[in-house]
């Protein structure tokens, strides 16, 4: 071989050695996965985006920086200013804090990775923003509320969102009522699931009860209110007492009223008491008549005795009763005394002792006179 041929071959080898790269290029680095927590953001939510890249090349790749940018969903955390090498066949994870600043929809913030050797990887990461809240509905309530009467309320909480939520609670808010329990904890609620929570609500007056359903989407707290107007009305099922078949009997020093009390409602009346009302002075033997429990469509006789001040022409007869929760109700029936003479309230009740003493003395005198007349015969 000639000497100049040898030099040419040597130069070609040198050139070849110079052209061959020292490491793998940007083309070998790919984004293998991205995850968002929570998986679906609501407007204003803050989430954590984790992106994993892999070096598919045979040699390591030097990465200068990594950052995320875009609109609608913006990165809150600082970019990675100096990343370093990613070895051949290895992966690297980048985590960004993002916030949904735009409206609803799918946004594509871009992950930008700058390589040491003038290369750049741009990868759009899809992020779904949906503002659908949890739903709260009243699935159980009475036909009407009554003051002080316990009502059973059932609230159903549903999750129409495309992702699971956690920390779901239902808390009644407002004044003028009491509830048991004071709040209900549901916890995690998977997508398209629903839970029902019961409450016992006892209103003290007409009011609005706000049931606040709160939950967390990732680290973001959300709430929605469900308002239940509490207005008093007639309970269609409650006990309904009527006093009938009244018979007023004036007696010496008092009146005696006989009658029937009937329950025309659909629920039993408990602890039914019958008493004469104001302007009447209850007297023995029936100052008060305890009927007890009166079932629906049932009737019971009662009897009360009382005196009046002599001027009363009507007397209220009061029927007190309670429902199953112990709430007290009062029903009043006015009984007309106008057609009867009024025994005086000033006379003592019962047998007049003075009259008895006089009668005994007279009896002794008469018997003595009769006895005397036979002795003198």
């Amino acid at each position, binding site marked *: 071989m000639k000497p100049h041929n040898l030099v040419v071959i040597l130069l070609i080898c040198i050139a070849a050695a110079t052209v061959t790269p020292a490491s793998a290029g940007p083309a070998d680095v790919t984004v293998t996965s991205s995850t968002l927590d929570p998986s679906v953001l609501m407007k204003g939510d803050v989430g954590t985006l984790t992106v994993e890249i892999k070096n598919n090349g045979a040699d390591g790749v030097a990465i200068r920086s990594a950052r995320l940018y875009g609109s609608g969903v913006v990165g809150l955390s600082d970019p990675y200013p100096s990343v370093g090498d990613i070895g051949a066949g290895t992966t690297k994870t980048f985590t960004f804090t993002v916030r949904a600043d735009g409206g609803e929809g799918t946004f594509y913030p871009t992950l930008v990775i700058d390589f040491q050797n003038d290369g750049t990887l741009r990868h759009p990461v899809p992020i779904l923003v949906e503002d659908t809240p949890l739903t709260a509905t009243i699935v159980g309530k009475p036909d009407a509320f009554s003051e002080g009467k316990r009502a059973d309320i059932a609230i159903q909480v549903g999750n129409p969102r495309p992702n699971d939520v956690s920390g779901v609670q239902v808390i009644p808010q407002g004044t003028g009522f009491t509830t048991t329990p004071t709040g209900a904890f549901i916890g995690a609620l998977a997508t398209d699931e629903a839970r029902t929570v019961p409450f016992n609500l006892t209103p003290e007056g007409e009011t609005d009860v706000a049931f606040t359903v709160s939950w967390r989407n990732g680290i973001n707290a959300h709430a929605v209110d469900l308002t239940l107007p509490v207005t008093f009305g007639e309970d269609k099922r409650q006990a309904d007492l009527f006093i009938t078949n009244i018979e007023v009997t004036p007696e010496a020093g008092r009146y005696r009223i006989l009658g029937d009390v009937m329950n025309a409602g659909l629920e039993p009346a408990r602890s039914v008491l019958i008493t004469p009302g104001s302007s009447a002075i209850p007297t023995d033997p029936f100052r008060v008549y305890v009927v007890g429990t009166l079932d629906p469509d049932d009737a019971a006789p009662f009897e009360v005795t009382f005196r009046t001040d002599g*001027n009363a022409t009507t007397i209220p007869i009061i029927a007190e009763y309670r429902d199953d929760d112990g709430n007290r109700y009062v029903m009043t029936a006015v009984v007309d005394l106008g057609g009867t003479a009024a*025994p005086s309230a000033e006379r003592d009740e019962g047998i*007049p002792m003075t009259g008895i003493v006089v009668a005994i003395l007279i009896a002794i005198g*008469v018997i003595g006179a009769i006895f005397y007349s036979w002795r003198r015969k």
Partner: protein
Amino acid sequence: MDTGFLRVLFDPGRFFEERMRGEAGLKIPALIILAYGIVGAVAAALMVNVIIAILPGEAQAYAAFGIAIAVIGALIMGYLMWIACAVILYAISMIFKGEGTFTRTLEFTGYGFLPQFIGSIIGAAFSYQIISNLTIPPMTNIEQIAEVSESLAGIIATDPLMQISGVLSLLFVLWSANILIFGMKYARNLSTRDAALTVGIPTALYAVYILATITGWV
């Protein structure tokens, strides 16, 4: 001690025995019946006065008339009762072959009303006590008057004072019967047993009636 006709209350045997020595006289018995009738008239007037008080204004104009009717009725009733009692006793005594004039029987029966007179005073006092304690609402129509009258009757009938009064009246009836036993013994010349039966039978029937009234059987 001579206490006049009042002696009949405590010593009727001797009183009637002495009266048999003289002619039959109806003056004192008639006065006794008059006094008995007056007491009854006062009691009736009190009751009528209560009734009149509840009548409507225009009806109260007849108050005096109503009271007068009650008084006259009570007086007449006293004499009618006297005569009726005498007739009954005279008739029953005939069963025991009693002898004596009806006038004598009438005289002695009149004396027998003396305890009734005392009893009627006490009864009137008891009735006044009951009536004065009643408050009666003003009435505007005839239905209310009927109701009040009925309730008044109920009140008076159930009043313990009235029941005590009933028992007392029974005692005075027994006292009268005791006097009349002696009266019939002498007026109709009966044995004590026959006189007791003559007086006892109607008295027992009357006592049963009084007891039935007190206990509410009738």
